[in-house]
C-alpha cells in the first residue's frame, strides 16, 4: 500500500491508484473551485479537460494522469 497526504490528511491507497481516485477515497472527490465558485471534480478522466488539476508536491498537475507515490502531498484547490 502507498501512503500519501490529501489536504494534509494521511491516506493509504493501493498501488496504481490515480490521484483522481484518491480524491474520492480520501475526500469528497472534488479537485478545485471554479471561477464562478462551483466545486468541480475530475470530469474527462483522460487528461484533456483540466478540471482535476491539483497541487501535487507543489506543482499543478492533473490528478487523473498521476499515480499516487509514497509520501506524495496532494492539495485540492479551495
Amino acid at each position, binding site marked *: 500500500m502507498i501512503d500519501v497526504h490529501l489536504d494534509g490528511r494521511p491516506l493509504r*491507497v*493501493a*498501488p*496504481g*491508484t*490515480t490521484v*483522481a*481516485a*484518491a480524491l*474520492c*477515497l480520501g475526500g*469528497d*472527490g*472534488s479537485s478545485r473551485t*471554479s*471561477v*464562478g465558485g*462551483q*466545486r*468541480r*471534480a*475530475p*470530469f*474527462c*478522466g*483522460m*487528461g*484533456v*479537460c*483540466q*478540471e482535476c*488539476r491539483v497541487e*501535487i508536491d507543489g*506543482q*499543478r*498537475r492533473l490528478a*487523473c*494522469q*498521476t*499515480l499516487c507515490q509514497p509520501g506524495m502531498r496532494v492539495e485540492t484547490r479551495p
Partner: protein
Amino acid sequence: MSEHYDLLIVGAGPAGMAAALAAAPSGARIALLDDNPVPGGQIWRDGPGAHLPPLARRLRDGLERHAIPVWSGTRVVAAAGPQALLLEDPTRGWRVRYDRLILCTGARERLLPFPGWTLPGVTGAGGLQALIKGGLPVAGERLVIAGSGPLLLASAATARAAGAHLLRIAEQAPLAALARFTAGLPRWPGKALQAARLFDHRYRAGSHVLEALGDDRLEGVRLWQDGSTVELACERLACGFGLVPNTQLAEALECALRDDAVAVDDWQATSRPHHYAAGECTGFGGSELALVEGAIAGHAAVGEQTQARRLFPRRQRWQRFADALARDFALDPRLKTLARPDTLVCRCEDVPYAALAGRDGWTDAKLVSRCGMGACQGRICGGAARVLFGWTPPAPRPPLSPARIETLLCLEDEA
C-alpha cells in the same frame, strides 16, 4: 544537444505499441511516449480497477523484450524546430529530435454541455471507465450512462464489474440505426461477441440526457426516454457523445486534416514527409483498426513497404466497421438544444451559453467572453462550440497543454 531517435512514436495505445513492435526488428532506434502513467492508451488502462486482456500484455511485454524506451507521464508541449518535439514529464522538460514520427494520439470524448453537467458526479463515459480503472470507488453507487456509441457499453461493463448499480444506458441513436449497426456485426465476429456481452436490458435507444440534477453534487438525472421525461436518482452520470480525434499535435506540425482527422495515405503517411499517423487520430475504428494501422505505419516508417502492404486487407475490413460506426451513431440535432442560457459551455472560465449565442464565430466569441481562454484551451468548449454553433477553433499554439515555463526555455536552442 538534444536526444535523437530514428523513430519517435507519440501515444502508447494500441496503435503506438503496434507501430513500435512492427518497426523494432529493423533495428531502428525507437522511443515511445504517452501522457498517461502507463502504456495501453484509453482502452488498455492498467490500475487497481483494471484487468488487462492478454493481447495488451503481449504488446507490453514485446516493448520490454525489444528494450524500447517508453516515456510515460510525458506530454508533447510543442514542435521544437524541424523534426523535433519539446517534451515534459513531472521532473523535466527536454527536446527530442527524430528522423521519423508516428502520431498515435488517439481520440477524446465529445462532451456536450447540458444543465448540471459541471456537478461533481458527472463525468465522461470513457472518463468514468478510466477513473474506475485508476481506482475510483463506485461500488454500490447508482449510475446512469448517456450519450452515444459503443463506448457507453464498455463503460457500463467496467462500472458494473466494479460494483456500480447501473440504472440506465441512454443511447441517443434511434433503434433503427442501432439495428442496422448490430446487423452488420456478424461480419466482424469478435465485435459481435463483444456486443452480445455488452448489450444489456437497461439499454434504451433514442434516449438522451436532459439535465443533471443536484445543488453541490449530482443527485439525479432527467432523461428523454420513449417520448417522455423520466427522472432517476443517482450518484453518478457518465456522458459521452462519440469521439473527437486528437489532432492538436498534427496541426501544430502542419500535417493536413481531412474530416477533422489526420489525413493519411495507404502507408499511413501524413501530408508532411517523414510524419505518419495511425489509430483513432486518423478516424475511429476501435482497437483492431488501430493495431493494423499502427503496424502499417511502423513498417512504412522504417522502409518495409512489403510488410506494410501485407496488412492492407486487414485494415480495409476494420475500416468498414469504422464507417458503419460513424453512420449509425450520428448525433441527433436535439442534442444541440440541451444547454440553457445559463448553462456553462466553457468549464474553465465559466462562460454560459448566453454569452456565446449570436457571436460572430469562435474568435469573436472567445475575445468577448473568455470562452476557451482557460487551462484546457478550448479542448472541451471548442468541441462543444463546433456542434452547437458550427464554429471552428483555429490551430493550437504552444504549449499544446499547460506546461511549466522552465520547460519552454528548452525552445531557445533549436540545434
